[in-house]
């Protein structure tokens, strides 16, 4: 204080210049933002009028359009990286679809070895009964709650079920547009989960609960269960979606029940974003989502409980593995840098 008082000639240093005033505005940024907002509005309109795009091609087109909007004004190199990412993304889903198809009749490895098609009819149901003291969670839930009229929990269960087709894709698109580093981190975990899930679809093709009770199939393990995951969604006026969904279902592998990708995707997305969520109550709320998903899957007769638990376990394992690998990679790069510095000091 006294120094200032004794220095009347003190001239304050000029205020520091903000970067925004020193660097010209990125001309295409407002255009990019406008395009992204327009896309979002267009997507919502499409969702309301035509339904939710869920088949792989429609989803790929919708993600592609979003990325074109989000990458306007980025460098050619960034576009090149995006192209490579898209190829990887497409290859991943293509492999997934092919493996799902192969699970229907067993998988031949180079024409030499063939995984037999050992359909699991009772095993998952028996595990569920062991977990729930002799009760079938699917039948118990439907017996208590399923009614002819649509109740609020039908809408909640249906919406939760349908988020499977949107939430992971939105997460990927947002990460793609905001941080390529985080996109890569997410995709490592996601792809690992898909690979393990596809392997299990081939090794343990499983009869899902709705099929186990359906008179159209010969199993009849439990009494017939209602299967209409879209009815709560339809109740909200999204008719277009359900039609597309039925077409999609008829093309899918109906025995791809173990593990549940619905359950694992519902865990992997919140778990990835959890470190950025500060309030504990919000963390707890976010982690409630996978629990809601599993409850919905069981109520809607889409999966056994053990399918969902297995999905969670694989998602957890994928996180554990990649967290460890990334920690090792960081430590390796830092220690290589320290060693090189020490070597250059010694040489000097």
């Amino acid at each position, binding site marked *: 204080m006294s120094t200032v008082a004794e220095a009347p000639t003190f001239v304050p240093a000029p205020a*520091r*210049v*903000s970067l925004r005033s020193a*660097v010209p505005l990125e001309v295409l940024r407002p255009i990019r933002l406008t395009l992204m907002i327009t896309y979002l509005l267009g997507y919502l309109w499409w969702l309301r009028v035509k339904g939710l795009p869920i088949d792989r091609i429609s989803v790929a087109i919708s993600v592609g359009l979003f990325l074109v909007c989000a990458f306007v004004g980025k460098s050619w190199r960034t576009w090149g990286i995006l192209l490579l990412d898209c190829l990887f993304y497409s290859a991943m889903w293509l492999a997934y679809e092919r493996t799902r198809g192969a699970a229907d009749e067993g998988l031949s490895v180079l024409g030499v070895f063939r995984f037999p098609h050992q359909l699991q009819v009772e095993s998952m149901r028996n595990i569920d009964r062991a977990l729930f003291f002799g009760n079938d969670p699917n039948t118990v839930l439907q017996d208590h709650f399923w009614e002819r009229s649509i109740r609020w929990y039908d809408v909640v269960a249906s919406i939760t079920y349908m988020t499977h087709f949107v939430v992971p894709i939105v997460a990927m698109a947002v990460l793609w547009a905001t941080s390529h580093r985080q996109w890569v981190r997410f995709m490592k975990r996601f792809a690992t989960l898909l690979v393990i899930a596809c392997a299990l679809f081939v090794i343990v093709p499983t009869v899902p609960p709705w099929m186990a009770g359906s008179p159209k199939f010969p199993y009849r393990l439990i009494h017939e269960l209602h299967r209409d995951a879209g009815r709560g969604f339809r109740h909200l006026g999204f008719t277009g979606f359900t039609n597309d969904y039925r077409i999609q279902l008829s093309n899918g592998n109906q025995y791809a029940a173990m593990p549940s990708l619905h359950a694992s995707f519902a865990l992997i997305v919140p778990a990835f974003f959890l470190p950025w969520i500060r309030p504990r109550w919000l963390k707890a709320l976010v982690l409630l989502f996978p629990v809601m998903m599993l409850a919905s899957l069981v109520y809607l007769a889409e999966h056994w409980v053990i399918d969902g638990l297995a999905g969670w376990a694989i998602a957890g394992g994928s996180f554990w593995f990649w967290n460890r690998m990334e920690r090792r990679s960081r430590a390796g790069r830092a220690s*290589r840098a320290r060693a090189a*510095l020490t070597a250059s000091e010694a040489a000097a």
Partner: protein
Amino acid sequence: MDPPKILLESTFLRAIADPADDHHQRAVGSYLQLLQQYEDRQILLVAVSDHLRLFRTWRHVGPLAPVDELYVGFQHRRAAHRALQLAANDDPDRALTLVMCERHSVTRVATFDPFFAAYELELTPSATAGIGRADETSIDARAVDGS
């Protein structure tokens, strides 16, 4: 979403890479602290690709192994060219550094160049300790600002 980025400016990179540089010891001391923070996932180390290329031959090898490059595209060079007219300097490298900081939301810079003290950037303290007398006004200004 990423941890805060620390941009290693070309004077800092040179000081690390060249044991004969005046700032070498200070740079190494500061860099070792940054490496620890990097390992603890508190920060990311980045450098402008044009600058990094001069001091690193292979990625993930040598003293700059943990440093990620901020790739300079045509639009960055164009912006740097226009920034030369806005900023009171005639050094394209400095202008490019400012552009890359702005475009990649970098607010912390490790540097021995007093030029950057005039901007709203948090300069790595141990690095700025080496700045000469002519730059002390700027550093005092930061203290007055409470930054």
